[in-house]
Structures are given as structure tokens and as C-alpha cells.
């Protein structure tokens, strides 16, 4: 949609910007999501320290969430302004939460005899 296109209005108007993604692409993303899930289950049976395990599992889940948001939720095919409005602010809020909680949780663990 160009800059001069009219705003989408009533419920009967389908979104003209909806595009992108083929069945083959969606199947590929689905297979990758399954592979990453399989890796997560495998890792769960390795005797890793909890903080390392949590970091790896959340890292893999972040990759999975990027695939879902980009392809299944079509954000990859939206205007860049939409991405810049939604994602950086969300990531910032999440980082603030992690900044508050994670160092303290490790401190408590290390204080134990």
C-alpha cells in the first residue's frame, strides 16, 4: 500500500497488504520448529547446571518465537514501521524485567552454604 492509499475501514474490507508466504515456506518453518523442539527435549536430559540449561532453552525458544512472529504472524511481510513500533519497545520492557530479576536470583543461589 502506498502513502496515498486510503485507510482500511469496515469489516468487509480485506487487508490489501496481506501477502507473502507460500505453503512450502510455511511447511519449512513448521519443520524447523519441530527440529528445535526436538533439540530442546534432548538437551533436557543432559546434566547441565540450571542457569546454563535455562539460558540455552530460552535462547532456542527465542529463535522459535522469531520464526513464528516473522512467518506465521506475517510480521516479516508488514511495513518496517509496524515492526519498529511493536518489537523494540516490547524487547526493552522484557530486558528491564530480566535486569531486575536475574542477577538477584543468582545472588540468592550463591549465598547458600
Amino acid at each position, binding site marked *: *500500500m502506498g*502513502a*496515498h*492509499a*486510503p*485507510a*482500511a475501514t469496515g*469489516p*468487509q*474490507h*480485506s*487487508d490489501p*497488504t*496481506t*501477502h507473502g*508466504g507460500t*505453503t512450502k515456506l*510455511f*511447511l519449512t518453518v*513448521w519443520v524447523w*520448529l*519441530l527440529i528445535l*523442539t526436538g533439540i*530442546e*527435549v534432548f*538437551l*533436557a*536430559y543432559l546434566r547441565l547446571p*540450571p*542457569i546454563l*540449561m*535455562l539460558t540455552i*532453552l*530460552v535462547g532456542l*525458544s527465542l529463535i*522459535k*518465537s522469531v520464526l*513464528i*512472529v516473522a*512467518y*506465521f*504472524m506475517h510480521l516479516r511481510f*508488514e*511495513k518496517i*514501521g*509496524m515492526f519498529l*513500533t*511493536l518489537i523494540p*519497545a*516490547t524487547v526493552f*520492557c*522484557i530486558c528491564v*524485567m530480566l535486569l531486575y*530479576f*536475574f542477577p*538477584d*536470583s*543468582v545472588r540468592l*543461589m550463591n549465598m*547458600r552454604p
Partner: protein
Amino acid sequence: MSHSEAEGIVSSPWSGGVAPFAVNSKKLGMWLFIVSDTLTFTALLVAYAYVRLANPDWPRPFEIWPAIAKSSAMTLILLSSSLTMVLGVAAANRGDRKATLKYLGWTMFFGLAFVIIHMTEWYTLIVHEKVTPWSNPWGPPLFGATFFGITGLHMTHVTIGVVYLAIIAWGFKKEKFAPIDVEVSGLYWHFVDLVWMFVFPMLYLMSVNLKG
């Protein structure tokens, strides 16, 4: 300011009368809801990660069968439901009403299957293992509180999603709803799937019984 410069400002996407993001208002509204719900789930999961890491006595009760097998199957089911949902959205956008309803039906089926398997998982924990939000046989009561709190909120989202999809499918069949309505419901459904991608490893895989 020259005339051409003034014209450029007036016709910019932010000067009013146009959609700067080039999306339907319903779609933008759903995205904003998803951002707020993301923060809700993030707060719960970060709080869970805090108590999980800070507590070396955290229980690891989940054996391969039934907990890990069931939760892995539930993950497969939700991922498959996202695939059928995205295929349903594509079918709606190309005007294939029959295929849209078929894919929406499969998505609802997967969603119901997820809820039913999850309920059996809860039943095992509550009735056989005597786990409640306030106590459990293995130690820190917070295990039950965080488990039932987070999975319960997620299961509520899945249940609402199935009802939402049923309403959209009915309306789309009756030609009351447009393809954009299917797409917006798809955004919600994929978000529910996305949340499970964090709940499954953090709650189940971090509590696998390594002695079993």
C-alpha cells in the same frame, strides 16, 4: 518553505487520512493486545525463572511418561495447529471459503486436543501426585503455584482461542466476516502457540526427572 516542500509534508503518511502502517485497524489492535499479553506472560515466566534458579531444591518430578511425552505431543499439536491456521489465512485471502473452513476446523480440533491432553496432565498431578498450588510432595510449594498459574493462564488462552475461531468460522461461512477477520484471529492463535514455546521448556523440560 517552497510549495513542493509543503506538499511533501501534507502528503506524508503521518499527515492524516491514511494508514501509516498500511494495516487494517483490527489487525493493529490485535498486535497491540498481543504486546500487552506478551508482557503479562513475560512477567509470570521471569518470576518463575527467578524462583526456579534461586531454589536448588526445586522439584524435578517429570518422567518421560506421562509428563514429558504428553507435553511434547502437546507441543507438536500446537505447532501443527499454527500450520493449519496459517494455511487457513492464506486460503481466506485467496477467497477459497471451503479450504478456509477446513483449515479452521483442523485448528480448532488441534486446540481441543491440546486442552484435553493438558486436562489429563493436570488430573494426574492433582489426583495421583497430590500437587496443589499450595503444596506438593516434593518440597517448595511454589512449584505447584507457578505450574498451575502459568499453564492455567495459557490453557485459558487456548480455550478462548478455540471459541474465538469457532465464532470466526461461523461468521466466515455465513459471509458476515471478511478474510481480515480470519487473519486477526490467526494472529491471536499464533501468539498462544508462541507462549507455549516458552512454557514447555521452562516448566516441563527444566523439571525433568534425570534419575528416571
